[in-house]
């Protein structure tokens, strides 16, 4: 009986992947995945507290129990999690309004299965997609997919200098140590209206699943992965 009702709920629920008006779902639309919610935890606001300047932030810090969308996700996956699936990384750009040193990056990532780890990369820009890797870090202890509101915080005391007015990218991807990871980057919920830039790196494995999308490709989407970049002047 409960199974039947779960089916009914599923049938009657409505998919809103193209939230916002300007993003038709087509072959090259930015891919968003929707999952059922699970119970989560209220986030600490510590990653956003004093001492650092907010250079970029799409987290809903006003709502500790709703800092991002639990259930609208971008896949981030290694080349070995499924032989039929490509390797996928995702990147979000930001443009500092002045010269800064980036000392902290906050992302909302979650784990489907595999090694509980992702690689966060900091890139400069190359023609509207991530260019040269400037620095990278490992992030672990990802919460399960569908939950809210734990975030992953990268602290870097040395920092990465950035120039005002130039575009940079924060990417989540994998390396040899987490090639079996199937994870996701949760979307922000502070703006589900405006089309925003995102880039996806796709690398085919056994099958040519990426089509003409091999490598980095730029998209726009109302649902952008949640990211904060903090630092010093």
């Amino acid at each position, binding site marked *: 009986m409960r199974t039947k009702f*779960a089916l009914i709920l599923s049938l009657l629920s409505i998919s809103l992947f193209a939230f916002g008006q300007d993003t038709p779902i087509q072959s090259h639309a930015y891919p968003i995945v929707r999952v059922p919610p699970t119970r989560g935890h209220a986030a600490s606001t510590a990653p956003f507290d004093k001492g650092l300047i907010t250079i970029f932030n799409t987290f809903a810090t006003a709502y500790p129990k709703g800092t991002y969308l639990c259930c609208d996700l971008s896949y981030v996956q290694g080349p070995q999690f499924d032989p039929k699936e490509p390797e996928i990384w995702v990147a979000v750009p930001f443009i500092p309004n002045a010269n800064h040193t980036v000392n902290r990056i906050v992302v909302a990532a979650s784990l489907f299965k595999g090694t509980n780890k992702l690689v966060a990369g900091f890139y400069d820009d190359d023609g509207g997609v991530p260019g040269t890797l400037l620095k990278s870090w490992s992030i672990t202890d990802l919460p399960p997919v569908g939950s809210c509101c734990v975030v992953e915080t990268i602290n870097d005391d040395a920092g990465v200098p950035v120039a005002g007015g130039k575009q940079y990218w924060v990417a989540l991807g994998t390396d040899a140590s987490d090639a079996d990871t199937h994870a996701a980057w949760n979307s922000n919920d502070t703006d589900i209206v405006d089309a925003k830039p995102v880039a996806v790196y796709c690398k085919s494995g056994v099958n040519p699943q990426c089509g003409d999308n091999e490598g980095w490709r730029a998209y726009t989407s109302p649902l952008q992965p949640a990211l904060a970049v903090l630092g010093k002047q």
Partner: protein
Amino acid sequence: MIRRLPLRIATLVILSAASFASSDKRMPLDDRAEGTMPPTSLTVESALNLDSGLVAIYNNIGTVYPKGRYSTNTGGVVGPKNQVGSGEYWLANAFIPNADYKVEKIVVAAVLVSGTNGLVVSLYDDKYGIPNSRLKSWFVTNLPPLGSCCSVEVAYDGSSVEVAGGKQYWVVLQTGPSNQDTWAGWVVNDTDQVDPSNTASYCSNDDGGSSPCGEWNDHWMPIVEPMAYAFAVLGTQ
């Protein structure tokens, strides 16, 4: 390469079906007879205008981020003559006032998929953890299309309904005689995706549709969801 999964509001816990007694089929919904409403789709600022002397008895609609008032997830509300091919399906979300109030306004975030552009918004009391008696209903119109954000619908006609502090009540989105072909969605809130919320769904395939309501046919089914539907209840003390 990349799959899009259909949204499903997950059922974490299905409460014991304490009562099968409530049956809205025997409760006529003379929706339009209860007052002709002006256009009811408004901005959140207009809808929640607390300067008007009203207080928020319950509110989970985001007020801080103008382009992120609620989530992208919705639950379906469909009339018996819908294009889905399912039974009639209504949704309810509970709230408990912390004191005695007079409810004057109910604000919901709903979107239209197809059919008549209107929904019945009702206030019910509670019995055994599901909606019981309908205390009042309003008919809201001008639902924005599926995929839009961030307007809301306001149910308001100048009168009020008394609610008692500490007792559970239900806001219900449903269909009536004048919108039997409506397929709409009630958008989920994004301000609290952590605490569970008491919701309920009502399924009936008596008047059409082919989806199996099973033993829940014509009954409210209580469901505890990780996220509540987006709504606010405003009133005076």
